[in-house]
């Protein structure tokens, strides 16, 4: 898979001379940290998708908005691409640098500017860690709901850029549901406010458009998030099943009973074993699947719901149902799930994490498909599943030191995503397209739909300087990739320029 930027497929970039760009930026921004030596650039060559590495031309680490503004104006004038990076924890290579580009690192904007308990909002800079917002809000009995598993490290700016999720999405929503306002600096160096402190803003919902746009439309410089009151009570049930399909059906039964759990997670046998070996969560290693169901809210309702869910799980054929007796046991149950990725990492030299979503009813069919792909390739696959909202995280185990295994893992991963698309789902639920899934976008969308995305992009960044090569593939790339929607090799709109 040609994952690195390819000018033939992804569009030509302006030829620039590193020394000249460095000189221009140093003159314009004498007080801004600008890294240019190889040893300084090295730490920035990848994000959380560490299999792919590119040395950026320069790394800019501004600490004032004026610097960001000036940097954008100069990059725009020089035709230098800008890749924005937060904490670098993203799993889809959204912050993968460009050899001919500036990597704009926003980590120095790390202040919580204001927590307003009466308005139930927090105004923060983009480099603030996700968990730090909840920590700052905690004294007021409030918290920030989206909780991606990297929440101790990932930054809120990156969360907005990727529309990050977490284990509580079904009930509390994604980032897009929990952000009120963002401040943006455009590629031309203009400042604008999208959304407002109120619940809506006049005009188009550009806040929604920018959320999850992967740094392709502007640079996010400040975020106002909604805070929620902490639920009074949260209880967790763990149900064991001797059959994955039964567990999948139980998920639907819980929803059908009118319950919307705070969290509803499923793990298969391999994931259970990995987690148990790693954190001793108390998981039943003989089970084929477990469900973790968290019910939260007002104490009395939670107790009622626990009883209802217990009945549903029994009827669905659970072989064992355990309820966490106290907060310590509840934390232990969750620790197994939240550490599933590193736990699987201990079983295998490398793993490749997928992020497809499907309608829940398709779960048995998709799991069977994954098992078949695993068998054919000889690569074990552990399944961790945000079951409530249909977001699967199959983890493909491989050894990058064995020749051909990385490519094999990528191939299996690509096929898993295509299974998700066929089932009516999506290639990414919360990790983003980035560079990783750029080719699978050709399966998810038709060329006409991709053309609309390109039109949107060009309204905000006509010169294609913001994070080029990510998120939306060119029609040329899809033609080359053998996209299913390119009929008999003929591209639609033969008159359109192919970048």
């Amino acid at each position, binding site marked *: 898979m040609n994952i690195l930027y390819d000018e033939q497929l992804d569009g030509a970039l302006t030829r620039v001379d590193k020394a000249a760009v460095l000189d221009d930026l140093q003159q314009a921004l004498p007080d801004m940290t600008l890294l240019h030596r190889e040893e300084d650039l090295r730490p920035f060559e990848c994000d959380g998708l560490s299999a792919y590495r590119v040395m950026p031309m320069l790394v800019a680490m501004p600490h004032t908005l004026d610097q960001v503004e000036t940097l954008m104006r100069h990059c725009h004038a020089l035709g230098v691409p800008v890749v924005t990076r937060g904490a670098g924890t993203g799993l889809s290579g959204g912050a993968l640098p460009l050899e001919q580009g500036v990597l704009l690192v926003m980590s120095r904007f790390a202040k919580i500017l204001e927590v307003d308990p009466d*308005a*139930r909002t927090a105004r923060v800079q983009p480099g603030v860690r996700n968990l730090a917002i909840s920590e700052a809000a905690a004294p007021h*009995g409030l918290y920030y709901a989206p909780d991606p598993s990297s929440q101790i490290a990932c930054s809120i700016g990156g969360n907005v850029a990727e*529309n990050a999720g977490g284990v509580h*999405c*079904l009930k509390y*929503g*994604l980032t*897009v*549901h929990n952000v009120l306002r963002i401040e943006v600096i455009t590629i031309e160096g203009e400042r604008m*406010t*999208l959304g*407002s402190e*109120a*619940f809506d*803003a*006049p*005009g*188009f*919902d550009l806040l*929604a*458009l920018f*959320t*999850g*746009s992967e740094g392709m439309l502007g640079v996010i410089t400040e975020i106002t998030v909604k805070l929620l*009151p902490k*639920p009074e009570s949260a209880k967790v049930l763990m149900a064991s099943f001797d059959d994955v399909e039964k567990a999948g059906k139980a998920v639907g039964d819980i*929803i059908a009973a*009118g319950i919307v759990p705070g969290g509803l997670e499923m793990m298969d046998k391999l994931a259970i074993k990995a987690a148990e070996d790693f954190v001793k969560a108390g998981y039943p290693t003989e089970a084929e699947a477990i469900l973790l169901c968290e019910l939260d*809210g*007002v104490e009395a*309702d939670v107790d009622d*719901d626990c009883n209802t869910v217990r009945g549903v799980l029994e009827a669905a054929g659970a072989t064992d149902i355990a309820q966490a007796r106290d907060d310590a046991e509840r934390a232990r149950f969750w620790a197994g799930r939240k550490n599933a990725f590193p736990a699987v990492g201990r079983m295998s030299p490398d793993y490749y994490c997928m992020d497809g979503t499907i*309608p829940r009813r398709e779960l048995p069919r998709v799991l069977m498909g994954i098992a078949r792909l695993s068998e054919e390739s000889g690569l074990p696959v552990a399944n961790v599943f945000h079951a409530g*909202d*249909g*977001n699967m995280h199959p983890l493909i185990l491989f050894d990058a030191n064995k020749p051909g295994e990385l490519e094999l893992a990528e191939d299996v991963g690509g096929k898993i995503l295509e299974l998700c698309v*066929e*089932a*009516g789902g*999506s*290639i*990414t*639920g*919360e990790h983003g397209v980035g560079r990783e*899934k750029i080719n699978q*976008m050709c*399966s*998810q*969308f038709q060329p*006409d*739909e*991709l053309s*609309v*995305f390109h*039109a*949107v*992009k060009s*309204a*905000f960044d006509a010169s294609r300087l913001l994070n080029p090569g990510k998120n939306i593939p060119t029609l040329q790339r899809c033609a080359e990739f053998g996209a299913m929607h390119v009929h008999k090799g003929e591209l639609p709109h033969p008159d359109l320029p192919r970048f």
Partner: protein
Amino acid sequence: MTRTHHEQDAHPVQAERGQDIAEQLCEQVRRADANATPLRIAGGGTKAFYGRPVEGETLSLTEHHGIVHYDPVELVVSVRAGTPLTELEAALDAEGQRLPFEPPHFGPDATVGGAVATGLSGPRRPWAGAARDFVLGCRLITHDGKQLRFGGEVMKNVAGYDLSRLMVGAQGTLGVLTEISFKVLPRPAATRSLRLEMPVETALERLAEWGRQPLPLTAAAWHDGALHLRLEGGTSSVAATAERLGGDTLEAEFWNNLREQRLAFFGDDDSRALWRLSLPNNTPALALDGDMLYDWGGAQRWLKTTADAETIREAAARAGGHATCYTPHAQGGARDPFTPLSPVVAKYHRQLKAKLDPNGIFNPGRLYEGL
């Protein structure tokens, strides 16, 4: 590999009819685009008052109706844009579910497409979310007359730009919505509404305090000396909270009347204009002439006033919000119903419109002049 979209309509005949009608709509759009003829996109016409008047050939969505796909266990429903809102709500109700953002109808002919295009939400909005929060995907006719699909029928989907949410509230100025997929939720086990007499200052203080607590609150409106509350949730918590808060029992119909602007406050027997102020949660009472009704826990305020647009918008902006005039200009309302955009934001609105509707055929001027 082929993309399947679960288009197994409950009724194959309807599905075929739906495709035929969609193709006719596409054809009308193609013709309009070729001739740069403005189109006035119309559903049931119940929200035609909302925004600036549009001159153009009518593109009617009402024939494009029907529920395409509803799977209660998935919490997802896909509906054609011309479907009456009442029909969708009845289908959801039969399965014990609902659209949590309780969209206003403003008349029996309200369609699903109109509800989404205007993006309006009812009293539950601060607690449950807005129309845009429940839109998972859509089908859209682009200016060149192609029906395309964005988003989907899954809860989480971050592939590509979020075109579906961009369409919510865009009032048809960027494309024609033909089908919408929503996330739906179960109705709660228990509901109770209360009326507590208190002055507005006390009500706002209480609401700020309650906002920090995990109460089963899903609506809060103050008017005429009393705070009106709705509690929804489990039987136990609703009963316990009602006991704790006290007050008198309120008919649940109050919330429908508020949402539909049927309360006496909204009576059109006076010549004052009706304004909607959208404000941050903890905004104190504003010094504006006229009658005020507080909804959304104070974050949405209805004002009947003779004050001029500038005064109202200035007061809303100072508080961190904005103001929309609901009374049409022809009936004495403001010339520009929506708060003007800042120059940079306006520039990107124009550029986006120019890219998605280069010949300016979709509801031109409905939101802003020239857009």
